[in-house]
């Protein structure tokens, strides 16, 4: 695989080129909240940050999106895709969030194809940015990821101080490179060495670890009934933070909205932590308490998803732990599961 090098002082030129020809989403900070936004100025994009508050999943799977419109009893307008005639580039994706797209690809692509996600996925180039300062609750290495993991991404940039090291990972990434080829020099062997040693160094900064995905999957199969679940989930407040900020959570609701005779069917993120998520109209609820709901969320990630798709639905980004208002610590919980 060919690698390239981009001088630091030309990095903004790369973003300018991206903005000119594509819709560019990049990490942006506002009121200490980092999220991926459509940017018009290269200066708005963050290059130095630990990870975003909100993962970039919403660009391909928006929190709210119109599936189709209707007037009266007639479906009209068909699919409404977001206003992106240009190809989209998401810049500055941390490798954990890049892996998350690969995981979510399974659910949207199995059996019935989800055209909204998949079409957006097809015309979006994912440009990763290696992690250099993991946050205290990062544990990606336990989930087969790492600070320079390439899975799911089309390109990966790694900060080598005075220059960025660029790896092209897919044809899509190659095409984007070719459009901007003049900005990049071929990387030297010494660059590759430097990048590899940097990745190892960053990896050693990760302090938190849990057992392997295989072990977790097996362990949870043996642990269906245990008082541990009740004790743990009693502390859960049942809010949607851990699911909404999770880069791999993909559940949604569908509702119809009608205004002045014009309607649309909308899908919006939903959360398995909400009681209403599974509540039947009859009042019956297969997951009536936080115990079942909490358990289901963890089982979905570490058992059901790998059972179905041979990949764990967690990338170890640590957001659920970082933002839980009850300070429920997923890493502790997984560690605890290992001890039972």
């Amino acid at each position, binding site marked *: 695989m060919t690698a390239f090098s981009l001088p630091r002082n030309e990095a903004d030129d790369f973003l300018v080129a991206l903005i000119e020809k594509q819709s560019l989403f990049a990490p942006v900070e506002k*009121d200490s909240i980092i999220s991926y936004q459509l940017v018009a100025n290269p200066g708005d994009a963050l290059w130095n940050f630990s990870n975003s508050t909100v993962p970039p999943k919403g660009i391909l799977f928006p*929190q709210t999106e119109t599936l189709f419109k209707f007037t009266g009893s007639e479906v009209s307008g068909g699919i409404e895709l977001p206003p992106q005639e240009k190809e989209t580039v998401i810049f500055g994706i941390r490798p954990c969030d890049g892996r998350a797209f690969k995981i979510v690809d399974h659910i949207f692509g199995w059996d019935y194809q989800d055209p909204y996600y998949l079409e957006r996925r097809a015309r979006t180039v994912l440009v990763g940015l290696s992690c250099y300062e993991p946050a205290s609750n990062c544990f990606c290495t336990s989930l087969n990821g790492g600070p320079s993991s390439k899975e799911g991404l089309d390109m990966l940039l790694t900060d080598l101080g005075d220059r960025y090291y660029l790896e092209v990972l897919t044809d899509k990434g190659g095409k984007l490179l070719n459009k901007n080829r003049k900005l990049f020099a071929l990387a030297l062997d010494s660059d590759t060495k430097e990048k590899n040693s940097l990745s190892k160094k960053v990896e050693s900064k990760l302090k938190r670890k849990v057992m392997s995905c295989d072990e977790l999957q097996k362990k949870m199969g043996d642990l269906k009934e245990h008082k541990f679940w009740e004790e743990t989930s009693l502390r859960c407040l049942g809010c949607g933070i851990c699911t909404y900020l999770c880069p791999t959570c993909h559940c949604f609701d569908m509702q119809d909205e009608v205004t002045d005779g014009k309607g649309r069917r909308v899908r*919006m993120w939903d959360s398995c932590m*909400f009681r209403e998520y599974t509540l039947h109209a009859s009042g019956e609820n297969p997951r*009536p*308490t936080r115990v079942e709901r909490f358990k289901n969320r963890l089982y979905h990630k570490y058992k059901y998803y790998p059972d179905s798709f041979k990949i764990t639905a967690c990338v170890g980004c640590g957001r659920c732990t970082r*933002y839980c208002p009850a300070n429920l610590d997923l890493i502790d919980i997984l560690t605890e599961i290992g001890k039972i």
Partner: protein
Amino acid sequence: MRNIQKIIKDGARKAVARDDVKYVLGWTPGYGFRVSPFFARTAEDTERLIFSPLCANNLTIYLTLQEKLPLPKAAALDKRKIALFVKGCDSRAVIQLIAERGISRDELVILGVPCGGVIDISKLEAKFPQAIKVEAVEEGEKLSLKVDGKSQEIPKEDILLKKCSLCEYPNPLIYDVLLGEEKQKKTKDYQGISTFEEKSPNEKWTYWGDKFARCIRCYACRNICPLCYCDSCILDKLSPQWIRRSVNLSENTVFQLLRTFHLTGRCIGCGECERACPMGIPVGELNRKLEKDVRELFAYEPGIDIEEKSLLSQFKPEDSEDFIL
């Protein structure tokens, strides 16, 4: 002064030993600066409890959070009391809950702990991003920290949660046992709110529109609120649907305003909504504005007296009508 940790553990152990107590709700340290709610059921469990300025969670929420499922045949209702630790503001939530008949006083054993303010842990995490084991001890106006063996002192005022730097009620107003020494009250001022009130409607909208636009509707502010305990919340109803589930500025604004208005004359200012918000929306400011209005218009303060009627269920001929447009 006896060590507060020992006082806390002793108090919890005594409570948990009672036959009529189901468990003691307290705080236990976790990884780094995090402290989590903890249900202590045995004397051994109580050894894990602590109290420090890192104990942010208002545990009152757990009194109403537990789902009430139909009991299995022949099973008797567990009528044992719940013992819980309350800081000053938390105790006001308990009072308000009792006053609203959300819970009954005799279901509780209240362990009061005077509180000198709670720390905004995101500020500490920014200073010590790789902290693993942390001990925090309050020493007057300073926080003495031991982070992975290294000691350091930080002025509290730099790192307190905003609501704590203006706290009028550091000492619990209701308790069965008071554990620890009473703290000095601070004077509440609404300066920030008053300044904001002076702004033009346009400026206000720009400010709040910007904040509401990024609300992800995770409902953490609702779920963590000790006084949001309706069995069926207006936000979740489908027919009629009062608020659409679409996440956009319009629906988010309705949601935020409804949430605030439902707490008019009820919010006791524990600030948990604001602390919970992952998107950094200062939702507590909305509550503080209504708290100010309620005080100025009706000289009313919720969560002080369990016998007090709720603001909206009482009417006095001399009530202010200035707010009616």
